[in-house]
């Protein structure tokens, strides 16, 4: 029997496997029913809230600044969205475990590339969607309910919440890579996030919590913010995202699929 050529092939592109998983996952996430439910629910809530407040503003003459309405809506949407974002992120890796992962991970892709592609894809989809939807909402609030929003404040608010979302996405994808079942991962993360949120809100005023960030949103949207404080939140969120994704990456690279 002839000895087949055993030389390492040199016609490969290093980042192509990463880009393949990234682009495929982006497409699949946009088609995902959880993602579509999130979009539809958010738009319906925003439109309903806006019309209700606009009605009160026009008919009853109840004038409240747009920054207050926006922060109320943000708060509601953020708390509600978290539940669906957790589902969307935990399932990124966990739902593909088994034969479907076989078809991908048995090819020329490393676990690192696969995990990072999944993480980046979900982060891009969620942050972009949030940024686009919140921009539309803020513009609508600005013109319909009073013009007290500042561009710099809005930018910082969207940036801060986006960074919080990146942290949530990272924790979610890492959880999906660590746990064997997406249902378990989702349940654990729901309990951990909402539980932690409640616990942090009970801490003294000097301790930071997501609740306090949202409570400060009306001021931030009006442009009344401390850059250092917001910067700390942005950096803190990115740090959590980094730690979570590193743990997820290492755990995923060492486990069976």
């Amino acid at each position, binding site marked *: *029997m*002839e*000895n*087949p*050529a*055993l030389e*390492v*092939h040199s*016609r*490969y*592109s*290093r980042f*192509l*496997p990463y*880009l*393949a*998983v990234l682009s*495929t996952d982006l*497409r*699949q996430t946009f*088609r995902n029913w959880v993602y579509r439910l999130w979009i539809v629910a958010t738009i319906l809530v925003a439109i309903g809230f806006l019309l209700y407040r606009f009605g009160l503003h026009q008919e009853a003459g109840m004038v409240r600044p747009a920054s207050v309405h926006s922060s109320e809506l943000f708060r509601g949407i953020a708390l509600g969205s978290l539940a669906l974002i957790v589902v969307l992120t935990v399932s990124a890796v966990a739902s593909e475990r088994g*034969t*479907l*992962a*076989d*078809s*991908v*991970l*048995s*090819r*020329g*892709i*490393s*676990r*690192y*590339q696969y995990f990072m592609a999944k993480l980046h894809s979900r982060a891009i989809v969620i942050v972009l969607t949030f940024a686009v939807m919140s921009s539309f909402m803020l513009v609508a609030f600005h013109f319909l309910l009073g013009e007290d929003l500042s561009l710099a404040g809005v930018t910082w608010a969207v940036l801060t919440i986006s960074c919080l979302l990146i942290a949530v996405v990272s924790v979610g994808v890492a959880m999906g890579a660590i746990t064997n079942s997406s249902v378990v991962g989702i349940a654990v993360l729901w309990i951990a996030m909402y539980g932690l949120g409640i616990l942090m809100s009970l801490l003294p005023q000097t301790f930071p919590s997501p609740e306090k960030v949202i409570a400060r949103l009306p001021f931030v949207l009006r442009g009344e913010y401390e850059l250092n404080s917001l910067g700390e939140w942005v950096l803190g969120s990115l740090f959590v995202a980094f730690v979570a994704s590193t743990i997820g990456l290492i755990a995923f*690279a*060492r*486990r*069976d*699929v």
Partner: protein
Amino acid sequence: MTGSDTTLVVETERLTKIYGNSHIALNDVTLTIEPGCVLGLLGPNGAGKTTFLRLVLGLHRPTAGRVSVFGKPMTPNAALLRRRIGYIPTNPQFPRGMTPITYLDYIGRLFGLSRDVRKPRLAALVRAVDLLGHSSADVSQFSPGMVSRLAVAASLINEPDLLIWDEPTHGLDIEARRSMLELIKSLSHVKTLILSSHNLSDVDEVCNHAAVLSQGQLIFSGTLQELKGRIRKNHYEMDLEGDQKGVTKAVSQIKSVADVKQVTLRQRRLELVLNEQCNNSGVLSQIFNTLSDNRITLVGLRTVGQQTEQAYLDLVEKEEQRGFARIFQPAEAA
């Protein structure tokens, strides 16, 4: 499997896999696969065949022992090594919303193949596996036969040196199975193959080596001929035609031939067992002469126990009967 200076395609050393401290899937498997080998991986359900393949691919991490592929350790991140492997899982699954072309393009990109390389290759493969007429159909709607054909194409898109096919004929109709076996035969001239299969006739037809797993343990590894000859050597069956008295007389004469261990006559079928170390052609020549002298016509002659299936079943049965003795001779592999 045999000593050689060539780089081994796969080498496992004391490979053990225990899932969650509750299930021993593979136990102390030491196996080498040389270039050009077509290895049939045999074993009953739950023997550890798929676990072995997944360990070779780096999809699972060994609990103990090691796996080397092309001389380098296989790990979950050994993407460069996997670029030289083509794999078909038992039940291939494809992402939704893809056509054969987009799926093969995706797999090509997963292997890091540039557009100039993968596009012509995927076009050739779609044509070769006869999916040209379904090239715009959603792969999630494919029949089992079409799924298998697409999986074959996906496993070949990177022009691998090693093919690992887990039950490639599973769920195929007769024609598709025949076509698959012909493909394996063609590929066996240029590739190293590991085929896991329940179908022993498939293994018999296309493989030149076999490894038998039983309850996670390797109980045989060697050539297919060794497997066939291992259990019942010099065991023959003859179908005779002629006068019954002549047959009886011939049988009594054959019993006295040196090196004939056992003679059994069932109607017109004569079963012969010769001594394992004897020169079988010499003994058979004496037997033919005896039959001829008694005017007996030899209608058929075949070796008994030389079929892979029988050898395999005997091997597994023998292993199970050994009981506690397995502790002292854990690897009886050839």
